[in-house]
């Protein structure tokens, strides 16, 4: 079965990349591929809890991500060094994720068929 990797490395709000990624992931999940979502670099900031989007009059991006498990998109991986570099820990995130280190990220990349970059 085709294994797709969605790679997020943009923070929320600063651009529409996060929303576009969520929409693309949900649309792709309908085809039932093997699907992994990887949050790396500033992308880990997408999952920060307590984002109060009302402050900017925009949609709650973090809440968008919580739709993923509902659609059975459950293989969510967070690059732990990116999290640590930003002074954050898994307890700060809105979803249950799998933490991966550099070597595990290298192995993940080598294992997928296509990568969608956001």
């Amino acid at each position: 079965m085709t294994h797709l990797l969605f790679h997020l490395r943009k923070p929320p709000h600063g651009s529409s990349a996060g929303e576009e990624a969520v929409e693309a992931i949900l649309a792709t999940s309908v085809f039932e591929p093997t699907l992994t979502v990887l949050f790396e670099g500033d992308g880990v900031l997408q999952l920060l809890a307590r984002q109060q989007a009302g402050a900017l009059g925009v949609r709650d991006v973090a809440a968008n991500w919580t739709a993923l498990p509902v659609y059975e998109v459950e293989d969510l991986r967070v690059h732990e060094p990116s999290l640590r570099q930003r002074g954050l820990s898994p307890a700060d995130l809105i979803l249950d994720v799998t933490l991966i280190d550099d070597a595990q990220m290298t192995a993940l990349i080598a294992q997928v068929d296509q990568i969608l970059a956001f």
Partner: protein
Amino acid sequence: MATLHLISKSPSASDALAACLRVLAEDDAILLIEDGVYAALAGTATSQTLAGIASALAADIEARGIQERLEAGIDRVDDHGFVDLCTRCDRVMSWF
């Protein structure tokens, strides 16, 4: 003759903040806006340098969920405070 410096990019997406800090004058102010507020995350490489120098825009902090993770010494400023900062300084310099 103070300058207000606006930083709107994350430290991962621009060298703007680092470049600004090189040329900051003693009475200048820095305001972190948009993704620039991530530079204020406590315990990061940049944030300690900014304590006492920079403030950060409240709406952008809250939207990103970092209101309780700010480095001590980085003040929050609301939109009217932003305008006030502009009037109290002599010019505004935007860094991207």
